[in-house]
């Protein structure tokens, strides 16, 4: 899923300064699971902002609403009758949701309430870690199911590099060397032949290098 982290409240306070009626808009999907922008986080942020305004003698209306998803037209339509009551929206969805809402409500200022961090997994309670960079042509079949694109600091495709020491990456002793993980898993799978094969040049035009990407599916179009 998409992993996000809460923005510092000071930053949000700064962003909402010019506006007096603000809607805090949550999203029920990824950001709920990673506890950055769901209904609960909407409540907490809205309450904190109201306490701030009351204690500073600032008059603002802070509203709350959470949508099933902010990256789908049908759900974003839900707030069409509500938006006129506000001067700005602080969206706690990932960057996709913020932008989709901004596209839909052209004259409404949309402010991000979270930092969108990565595509990752819920590794432990309160710990989310990156697993994929959406490179557009997945190589996991050759790499023992461990992604060198997102988990190797240099995105090396025939690793490890010379900086790999005792299974750790040279960027930090707390970061596993992705290639060490790949080799360990290929050994466990008895597939070290995959490791010996030289990786073909990767088509990076499918990655961000090729500009914004789209997926079109004629079969599901209406």
């Amino acid at each position: 899923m998409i992993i996000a982290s809460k923005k510092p409240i000071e930053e949000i306070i700064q962003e909402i300064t010019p506006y007096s009626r603000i809607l805090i808009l949550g999203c029920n999907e990824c950001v709920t699971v990673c506890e950055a922008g769901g209904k609960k986080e909407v409540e907490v942020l809205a309450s904190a902002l109201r306490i701030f305004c009351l204690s500073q003698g600032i008059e603002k209306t802070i509203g709350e609403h959470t949508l099933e998803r902010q990256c789908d037209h049908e759900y974003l339509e839900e707030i069409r009758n509500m938006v006129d009551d506000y001067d700005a929206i602080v969206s706690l969805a990932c960057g996709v949701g913020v932008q989709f809402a901004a596209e839909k409500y052209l004259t409404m200022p949309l402010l991000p309430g979270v930092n969108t961090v990565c595509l990752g997994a819920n590794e432990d309670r309160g710990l989310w870690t990156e697993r994929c960079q959406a490179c557009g042509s997945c190589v996991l079949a050759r790499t023992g199911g461990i992604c060198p694109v997102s988990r190797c600091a240099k995105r090396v495709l025939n690793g490890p590099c010379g900086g790999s020491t005792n299974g750790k990456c040279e960027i930090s002793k707390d970061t596993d060397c992705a290639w060490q993980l790949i080799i360990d898993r290929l050994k466990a799978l008895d597939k070290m032949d995959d490791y010996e094969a030289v990786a073909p040049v990767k088509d990076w035009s499918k990655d961000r290098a090729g500009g914004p990407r789209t997926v079109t599916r004629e079969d599901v179009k209406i």
Partner: protein
Amino acid sequence: MQDTSTKEAFEPRIIGFCCKFCAYAAADLAGSMRISYPASVKIIQVPCTGRIDMIHILKSLEDGADGVMIAGCLEGECHFLQGNFKARSRVEAVRRILAQIGMEPDRVAMFNLSSAMGPKFAEITAQMTDRIRQLGPSPVATAGKKSRDAA
């Protein structure tokens, strides 16, 4: 800046979330022992401090409480094993939020005691009341009062 005379006159309104198994029972015991504790603390019984969410603490402050105290079992003695540790980390999270929005984090505090500690209950409520008295009325409560007066 408030003068001390107002601070002394000021009777804080403190919400005390008390775990049923320890602090609430200790408050009861204090009563049976005829030990008085400050009337400033309004007790809300919870099944475990682990039930308390950040939003309960924030809402108390938003609605005008001058302080919020959370009283749970001694560490390692929670009936639900981890409840009081969870409460402590939520209290810390709320205190961080308060610091970010320019409110005194000390308006929110966590205490640990057992059901046998009646006198200790009186002590911590007095301690909390003193602390809040030092900090003065919550600006939220004052703003609320002003808007009520205006209306």
